[in-house]
């Protein structure tokens, strides 16, 4: 049996296996910390920055991603403070303004309390969460796709933009992609994007953002806590 450590997340003492991440521990315990780029059972890269939490050390709190932070005995974590909710909302707003045409991203925006989008919508086909790349070359070691370019030119592509012979057509990349399921009201045309907010009323505690209990929002991209996985 793996040794257990006790961590304190939002006031609750949680016993969890040594070596697991704070996000895993929180999800296991039933505290949902919004996340996007994390794929279960794969080492996290901390790219989407949605799962940020406050890690309190000696009275000082440090904002860090819970998916990359490994549990340690006696650790104190705050996942739902005013500060974190605001930061998370701003990050989610950036995401949804970039890719409004995804149910998963729209769900995350609602869950993080985004009420309005203050940037012009862009309707990208990819939010560069890196879930596909983490799995295909990252875990399977099949270099059929990967990141190309940097900064605003970053994109996911097959080598030399040609469909690779290495691809086994396993379909894992599309399974993990948050862009595969369109919003409930159907696809949005360029220039007509909006923040959907349909399911805001379904939130467990509508007034308290960032909390979702048995929600069915995350189906689009196999959210850890979507009903299928429950």
């Amino acid at each position, binding site marked *: 049996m793996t040794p257990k450590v006790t961590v304190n997340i939002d006031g609750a003492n949680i016993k969890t296996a040594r070596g697991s991440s704070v996000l895993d521990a929180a999800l296991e315990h039933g505290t949902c910390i919004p996340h996007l780029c994390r794929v279960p059972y794969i080492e996290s890269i901390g790219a989407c920055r949605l799962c940020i939490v406050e890690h309190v050390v000696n009275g000082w709190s440090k904002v860090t991603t819970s998916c990359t932070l490994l549990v340690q005995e006696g650790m104190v974590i705050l996942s739902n403070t005013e500060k974190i909710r605001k*930061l998370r909302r701003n990050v989610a707003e950036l995401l949804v303004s970039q890719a409004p045409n995804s149910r998963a991203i729209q769900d995350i925006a609602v869950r993080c309390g985004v009420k309005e989008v203050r940037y012009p919508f862009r309707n990208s086909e990819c939010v560069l969460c890196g879930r596909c790349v983490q799995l295909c070359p990252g875990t399977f070691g099949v270099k059929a796709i990967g*990141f190309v370019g940097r900064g605003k*030119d970053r994109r996911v592509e097959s080598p030399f933009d040609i469909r690779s012979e290495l691809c086994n057509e396993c379909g894992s990349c599309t399974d993990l992609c948050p862009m595969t399921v369109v919003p409930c009201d159907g696809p949005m045309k360029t220039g007509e994007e909006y923040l959907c907010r349909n399911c805001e009323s379904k939130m467990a505690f509508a007034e308290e953002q960032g909390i979702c209990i048995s929600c069915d929002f995350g189906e689009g991209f196999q959210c850890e806590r979507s009903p299928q996985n429950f």
Partner: protein
Amino acid sequence: MTKINTVKDLKALRKRLLKERKKIRATLVLCGGTGCQASRCQDVTDAVKNELAKQGLKRSVCVRTTGCHGFCEQGPLMVIEPGNIFYCHILPDDAHEIVTKTILDGEVVERLLYTDPVSGKLIQTESEIPFYRAQDRYLLAQNRQVDPCSIEDYIAIGGYSAFTKALFEIPPESVVREIKDSGLRGRGGGGFPTGRKWAECQKAPGDEKYVICNADEGDPGAYMDRCLLEGNPHLVLEGMMIGAWAIGAQQGYVYVRNEYPLAVKHARMAVDQARKIGLLSDKILGSSFSFDIDIARGGGSFVCGESTALMASLEGKVGEPRPKDVHTVVDGLWHKPTTLNNVETWANVPSIILNGSSWFASKGSKGSKGTKILALTGHIKNTGLVEVAMDTTINTVVFDIGGGGSNGNSIKAVQTGGPSGGCLPADKFDLPVDFDVLAKAGSMVGSGGMVVMDQETCMVDVAKYFLTFLQDESCGKCVPCRMGIDRMLEIITDITEGNGTSWQIGLLEELGSTVSQTALCGLGKTAANPVLSTLRYFRDEYEAHIHAKKCPAGVCQALVTYKVDAEKCTCCGICKRGCPHGAIVGKKKQVHAINLDLCQKCGICKSECDFEAIQVK
């Protein structure tokens, strides 16, 4: 080059070199830094060497091409020892006069001396020049004493004696304690206490450890690391050897950007020489310590200056940062404990070991010890590399050393710390160059870039420039940095084009603070600094762009119009001939006017006009 096997050998070699040097009648020290190379110092060196050969002085007069002397504005530079006579703006044709007059007759060639722009007096020696006088040059002063391609030069001035002292007289724990006591902080940007870093790495479990020298300097306008690595590579290597001995590393890497070809060449040469002479080998000088250094070239990515991205690049992976929840001193290069320091930090180490921590701690302020090299650029009279104690005020740097604004313009702000730093207005110039003080003021010492800006600079445009730079250089891995910078740039572009709205200022502030709190690496965490600091000190300029639709400095093209001042116009017609768009109308002896429909706001007319008759409003 004979191999040295013991400390005794090294001392004997130093003695022999010094004895040989006593025979030399004079030394011509020529700056061969990149700045002076751009002003064709190589031709001057060749001419001087030819002249010496012609006059039969080849053996008794030594010509030493060294690294940067700092005063790049006045290049090519030459210092003649003994006497420390300082010549500037030398041309190849001057070689004959220098050799016959100064070397043979002991006279000074007055027309090559530096003229003090304030008093108009000729100045003969380097130490009297105001640019050098207000500085506290320790690291940079060594540049002048050594030929970077010669390990003998370095050994002759006492080089590698700090390393041998550490290796045979000071145990690793005491080396770390000495560095801790000195108060040395990382010179690359963050200002992390070096001693603490070393102590953690020393304690970290594992036999295999690494030291890395970060020479991936990429800030626009900054070149202090380049100058040190080009000018005195052995000093950096010696620092790394002491660090490796302290933490117990067997291998070191110098990660230098490929855009610095001279630095790459000199660093490689230095490593080869140190290997040949026996200072980088198995069981160095008969001790139990083995260490080697390799040179790795960067592939042109700014973000690879970030420690984890640099390590990924060294490992042969894509140069992207990774989360640092476990520090690199425990889990670094190839998951082994790694100490990574900046070039300047390593270069400070030998002198601390040699002179003691209290000597180092005697300079600087309470929280920031020692000296810092700054790259002084921008709208200033004396651009160049400057080394000052860390309690020197910005006023001293900008006005006493830098000589104030070029063209007599008044200075509006200074941008410190490169793209990650911030802009400080002139009324904050009484602040010292201190890590904590500048951070509190919304800027940072950073790697030491200092860009001075005069009244003709638009601060919104400056923020836009740095955001464009960061947008290109962001790796794009994390959302806040990739999308946040992109959106901030979008908003600022709106503002500079006259499409800004007042609520966008609040949005910029909120977004900036989100990016700085949530981004993955140091680049992202500091990316909003140019925006946040200009918003803090120059909010009125943002507001003028948004409400009055005017650019006060007359920089943002969409918000300015060009006009001819009828009173000043002498009807010479130069502007009309210069205008590539045919937008200027007016006949001879008739005041000219600009057709705004055709005007492309290129500014050529303004630069052509000798009477300041073209106004930008």
